[in-house]
């Protein structure tokens, strides 16, 4: 995922900055080391496994900034924020989290059967420091996110 030995100080691989992307980066910190997706780092002593290790040679061919989400996901993202009081699943708004998932390793053809689609399952932590797995399904033909969830352990 990172190109040098100092991932915490690595610039965003897409050259994105909080200023450039507005609220998508509001709660983001530095990219996570060792392939962990999400907003926070794993606890000390937890290696994070080998999913998406920085030795992975996966070239970044998909850019998170170029992905759309389905209207269904968009609707769910907006459903409860009309009063501005709460945002559920804030990770869905994080371009950097999505990019980290994509960069973590090669996806597999969607086992659920969505045509022209691939899926990543990447261990990580959510904004509440709960450990789990990020699930991301992308239709490569339309460059649309069909499914994006976090399954707690």
């Amino acid at each position, binding site marked *: 995922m990172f190109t040098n030995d100092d991932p915490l100080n690595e610039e965003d691989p897409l050259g994105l900055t909080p200023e450039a992307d507005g609220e998508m980066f509001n709660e983001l910190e530095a990219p996570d080391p060792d392939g962990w997706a999400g907003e926070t780092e794993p606890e000390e002593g937890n290696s994070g496994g080998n999913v998406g290790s920085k030795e992975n040679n996966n070239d970044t061919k998909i850019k998170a900034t170029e992905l759309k989400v*389905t*209207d*269904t996901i968009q*609707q*769910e993202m907006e*459903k*409860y924020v*009309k*009063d501005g009081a*709460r945002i*559920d*699943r804030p*990770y869905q708004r994080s371009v950097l989290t999505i990019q980290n998932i994509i960069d973590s390793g090669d996806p597999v053809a*969607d086992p*659920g*059967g*969505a*045509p022209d689609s691939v899926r990543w399952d990447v261990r990580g932590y*959510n904004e*509440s420091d*709960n450990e789990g797995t990020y*699930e991301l*399904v992308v239709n490569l033909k339309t460059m*649309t996110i*069909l*499914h994006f*969830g*976090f*399954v*707690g352990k």
Partner: protein
Amino acid sequence: MPLEFSASEGDALGGLLFYLESEYSFRFEAGSPVDLSDRVGNGGVTSLLIGTLQIEVSVDSTAILYIWGLHPKSRWETGPVTAPSQEAGVVRLSGDVSLNRE
């Protein structure tokens, strides 16, 4: 840990559930966003997953709200279906359950 559910009398959440073939997904539109917001409460929502199909649950009340999400039609099987008997009510997760927002 197996999940347990309980059903009780009450008004079901009104709305429309439909399937979008272009997105391979189910979508639910609540008849009353205010009613939905009241049922969700302040604790937010989380999901129970059947694959990528999401059963939306209120964290505070553990009430099942609706289903939505990816469920590619290409994997469906065609066959006769007998609709079960049903009545309006509210289904909740029961037992010793602690939910967290995603």
